[in-house]
């Protein structure tokens, strides 16, 4: 997030797009509801009729997968009507002309055709967002889990810069990051193309700094993103896998493909809390420690670095994971000497400029938001207040590209997924609390009443959903929360593994898969 969760107190208007925080980020959803109650305006762009959508001033029921067209359409109107922030664009950005050129063809009529959003609503939304005030955009996986994910994120940034909504309290572009520490995992360089602190692999000073600090030559060849590992196993270029705390056998798209990849891989190590589906394919399984059994830090979606603390002992011989890495590294001849998680953190802050001013002592009471350049810096609640990281904000307009797998005669329905409030991912953790199962006993296929009528589906009928990749059986829940022509389901139940259906086509930059949309056929069984 460029801004902070607490900023919601100052926001005058929320533009929620591809995000349902009521189930995915409940305590943030709460703050947005409270802001709306206090009088903030709310625009929700979502094919689903979520709770936020029903509370919204404008609910934009978009055709899934058409967000870039929608965003370009807003910018078209804003430019045509001269609503853009001329001062901000002039002083803080560059390549504005590229946007003007590109969005020219995205007339409201053209956009209505693609997105099914009425032209009048496009005008209303564009005028509302461009108006004076602290306006925040929030987005989630409904934006990024597409082959065009990066295009969408860039288009969102274009819109926010165009209207000068960046760098102000209560505004900004605010991706709600999925996992508790996905921000931190990125910050720490658990990425195939950057070292910790987003240091590139090409001849940067930072690269040399890491070689010096780690006292070894580092590889410059870019690595393989997680989503490309499977095809590389099949073509024989990857032979060994070390999987820490992830369960690709259920969580990745097109899991039939993933499972045969795990089967084929010569040597697989899994380090986890449980014998997950993935661990069942492993040659060695290492028992790690849960968040309550070790010291460390997580970095949340607003870049806030916060402590976890050892409260209980790990069960049996399970060990804190940082110790496992240390000991295995020593075994393999690369010596690591850390006595505590804090020792590791001290090394991190000595290398990462964003973390430089953070210490465990400073995190004792409350977390700090990076960048924290010095030990007396209070942390950064709003990014880009004076300038952007690269100096000027660069407009990179993108054309609309249709979804990878359009519906057709054989697979006539769209399929999309989201989170269940009471469960998390595939329930390996939440599933251990009996009360959670009572709240959320199963996943339902949400079918619009129009589709139900047309397909002869009755409430709680068992449905067989089939995509080009696999099949899942679910019971039907007939509700107008789902858009006509689209079936939604939550993906958190192990007995309804929706990733047998999902699509493993990847974004050209981020290599994120098109989780959120594929074509299916539906049969009553």
């Amino acid at each position, binding site marked *: 997030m460029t801004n902070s*969760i607490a900023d919601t107190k100052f926001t005058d208007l929320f533009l929620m797009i591809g995000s349902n925080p009521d189930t*995915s980020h*409940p*305590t943030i959803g709460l703050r947005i509801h*409270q802001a709306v109650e206090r009088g903030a305006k709310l625009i929700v762009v979502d094919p689903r009729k979520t709770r936020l959508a029903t509370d919204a001033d404008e609910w934009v029921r978009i055709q899934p997968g058409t967000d870039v067209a929608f965003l370009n359409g807003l910018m078209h109107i804003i430019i045509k009507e001269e609503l853009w922030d001329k001062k901000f664009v002039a002083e803080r950005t560059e390549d504005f002309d590229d946007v003007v050129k590109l969005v020219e063809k995205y007339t409201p009529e053209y956009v209505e055709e693609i997105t099914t959003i009425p032209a009048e609503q496009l005008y209303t939304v564009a005028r509302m967002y461009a108006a004076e005030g602290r306006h925040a955009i929030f987005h989630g996986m409904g934006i990024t889990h597409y082959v065009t994910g990066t295009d969408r994120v860039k288009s969102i940034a274009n819109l926010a810069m165009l209207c000068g909504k960046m760098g102000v309290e209560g505004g900004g572009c605010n991706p709600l990051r*999925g*996992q*508790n*520490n*996905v921000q*931190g*995992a990125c*910050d720490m360089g*658990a990425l195939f193309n950057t070292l910790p602190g987003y240091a590139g692999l090409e001849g940067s000073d930072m690269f040399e700094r890491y070689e010096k600090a780690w006292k070894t030559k*580092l*590889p410059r060849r870019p*690595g393989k*993103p*997680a989503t490309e*590992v499977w095809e590389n196993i099949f073509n024989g*270029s*990857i*032979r060994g896998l*070390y999987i820490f705390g992830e369960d690709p056998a259920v969580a990745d798209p097109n899991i039939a493909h993933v499972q045969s990849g795990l089967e084929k891989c010569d040597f697989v190590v899994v380090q*986890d*809390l*449980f*014998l997950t589906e993935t661990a*069942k394919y492993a*040659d*060695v*399984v*290492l028992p790690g420690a*849960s968040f*309550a059994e070790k010291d*460390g830090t997580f970095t949340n*979606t607003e870049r806030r*670095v*916060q402590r*976890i*603390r050892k409260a209980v002992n790990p069960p049996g*011989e*399970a*060990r804190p*994971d*940082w110790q496992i*890495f*240390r*000991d*295995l590294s020593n*075994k393999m*001849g690369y010596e690591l000497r850390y006595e505590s998680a804090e020792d*590791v953190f001290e090394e*991190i802050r000595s290398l990462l400029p964003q973390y430089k001013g953070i210490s465990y002592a400073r995190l004792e009471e*409350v977390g700090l938001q990076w960048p924290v350049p010095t030990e007396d810096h209070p942390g950064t609640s709003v990014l880009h207040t004076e300038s952007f990281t690269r100096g000027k904000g660069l407009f990179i307009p993108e054309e609309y590209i249709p979804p990878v797998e359009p519906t057709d005669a054989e697979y006539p329905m769209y399929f999309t997924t989201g989170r269940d409030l*009471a469960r998390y991912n595939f329930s390996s953790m*939440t599933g*251990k*609390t009996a009360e959670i199962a009572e709240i959320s006993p199963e996943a339902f296929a949400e079918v619009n009443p129009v589709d139900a009528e047309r397909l002869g589906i009755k409430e709680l009928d068992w449905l067989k959903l089939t995509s080009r990749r696999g099949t899942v059986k679910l019971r039907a829940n007939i509700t107008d929360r789902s858009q006509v022509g689209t079936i939604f389901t939550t993906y958190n139940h192990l007995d309804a593994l929706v990733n047998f259906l999902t699509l493993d086509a990847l974004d050209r930059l981020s290599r994120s*898969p098109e989780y959120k949309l594929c074509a299916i056929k539906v049969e009553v069984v």
Partner: protein
Amino acid sequence: MPITLEINGSEIVAEAGLTILDVAQRSGIHIPTLCHVNGKNSDVPCGLCVVEVAGQEKFSRSCMTVAIDGMQITTDSKELTQHRQDRLAVISSTHFGDCKAPCNLTCPGQLNVQGYIAHVAKGEYAEAVRLIMERNPFPFSVGRVCPRFCETRCRRLLVDEPVSINHLKRFVADWCMANHVDLKIKREKLTGKRIAVIGGGPGGLTGAYYLAQKGHNVTIFEANPKLGGMLRYGIPDYKIPRHVLDYETNLIMRMGISVRLNQKWGVDFNLQDLKDQGYDATLLATGAGVDQKLDVPGCHLPRVHHAAQYLRDIAVGTKHEFGQTAAVVGGNNIAMECARSLLRQGVANVTVIFHRAQEEMPANQRVIREATKEGIQFILMASPVQVSDDNGKMKLDLVRMRLGEPNERGTRHPEAIPNSSTSITVDTVVSSLGQMACDGSFQGGELENGLAISPKNTIKASPRDFLTSVNGVYAVGDCVSGTRTVIQTVVSARKAANNIHSFVTGEAKDPADDRFNFTRGKSFEKVSMSNFDGIAIKLREKMPTRPPEIAVQDFDEVKLGFSEQMAKNEADRCLSCGCTAFDRCDLKKLDIDLKVNINKTGMGLKPVYVKDESHPVISVDLNKCVYCMRCVHSCDYDALELTQKGIDKNFMATGISLKFKDNCVNCGNCVDHCSTGALNKKTSIVPLNYEKMQEIRSTCPYCGAGCQLLLKVKGDTLMEVSSEDHLAPNYGALCVKGRFAHNFVQSKERLTKPLVRRHGQLVETTWENAFNVIAKNFFDIKSMYGADAIAGFSCARASNEENYLMQKFMRTAIGTNNIDHCARL
């Protein structure tokens, strides 16, 4: 413009527009209130926050009164206290429930019985043992020999039968032994103080255990070659097997206690020696091992044995010839064990002789029944007058007894019936007429001579602080009280340890548990049967026991212990009388603080409302509701509807009803704000009474919001999760996952050992081997295909430190940039 006002004589500068309560709270001045939360009060205000404002005739409610410049406020006075007491008495008068369960209150050791049963129900056996050991370090022995005071008060008796509490205690202890559980009980920082404990029985070991836990350097001086005292030398194997006792004493000694065996007090050392050696205090726990002798003619004949000595001989393996028939004189527990042991030593007929009726025997009736089943016979209302040799056998002359006229206290003492003599002939006589601490005095030196002794030949020690007549010397257990149960000895030793700790450190004693208690009825007669509506009969699990005719053939344990399923079934029978909000109840806290005597002013007598378990994570008991409305006012979602039908003459709500609306997101915030136990988390069934709990801050392991959590930890178990209202980023808010979905931490499905694939199967292995296998395979792949043939997936759920190390490992030890995680997934 800030305002200036005076509270309790101190000048305070405050923001204008705040209430007096706000101003006081911000200035750290405590004004009691029950209903104020988030700036809102109950529709039926608690009326506790009243203060005196100078110039006002009546009290002002500080939550409603805006502070004004120049105000003079008094928050505490006799009149205010009286008003608050009156108001609390009214509020308490309808509150209906048990603070502590009757089992807990009845246990001499005040064990958190309901708590450990709840742990059993949840499968948390090690935590059950840790909870027991907070107050009783002898779960194995007490779990086998306790007379079970608790079970006599178990309310389940009113439904069917009491819960088999003690068998559960034994089960969890045995389970931990069988599963080699390391209990990891913490010891406090070393104090440098040295404490001598004389006697390594239950009293001495208990005292040593709690003193060592407090960080003192403790040495036990034991006269025998092994620890255990009466448990080893007075209770036979068939009740407490030796290997179990060894395990138990070892467990206690692991707290870091030194021991000197074969050191007899008064022979090998005396109290002065201990002082000279620098011990800061001494605890006497020598037990009562000196037999009260049978004082009749012939009592010195060689085949007349005395109980304590007899049992000791069995324990150390000293053999005697006992013949075919034996008489045991006396009716105490030890007499029963002597009789049962004689059977096991091959004596065919054993008769117990006692001078009163069976119901009046001091032995536990359960033990008498067990003895009877094994074939022990009884001659009651008879007393020996002479023993004589009868051709190698012993002739025991008896006189028959009857109960005399009641004395001035109404007690009828037995008296001999004139001319009623009779006799039996036996091979062996064992006399068990009770045991004393000493034979009139303790030998050893000057200090020993100064040790005051009671007429019953026990050590005199203050019942308040366990101090003897010698400064710095404390005494506990049977050497003070005469023979009592193990749990009673344990209690006195634990309390003495607390006193000794205070004596050697100068620190205040840990406060005793407050006796304040709401109860649904002190005695069974007072308990309304409507409490048990809808509870189905479910009889207790029967302890698997060896058949008596087989059991008497050896000294192997008679009772075999519950299976895990039996333990679970039995734990599920617990009615959970005690309040699981015990540790957070504000009503109780205020009643105690303001010294409201609810026994006089009254409490609810019978249930008015039916408990509501329909919510998935919250159970509701409106019998405890005081209509403070904090649940409604703390709910961020406006998802609760609390209503009342009327307000009575005492200004109390009646006909209360609570509904969760459809928009409830199960976040549980209302429970954390409930002022009593009216709302409870279904996952939190272990009541925490006066036991200490740790609170540890952490960050939620689920979504990217990064909510701050407060983990409530007891021993090695995450008991409950809540949050703190003042901390970013969530400021107290949590979702259902953040507050409830943490059972995975203690899940039985957790991986506890490294696994390696062998012949297609994943099998347990050592860390060393797992690392070797990984290193070998990664090296092989690297040398054959290059480092880029290995890829790593890091974890967006793990910490920064771990992600940093995983990528560092891949880039250095492996040498590839094939490292990624699910950021794009």
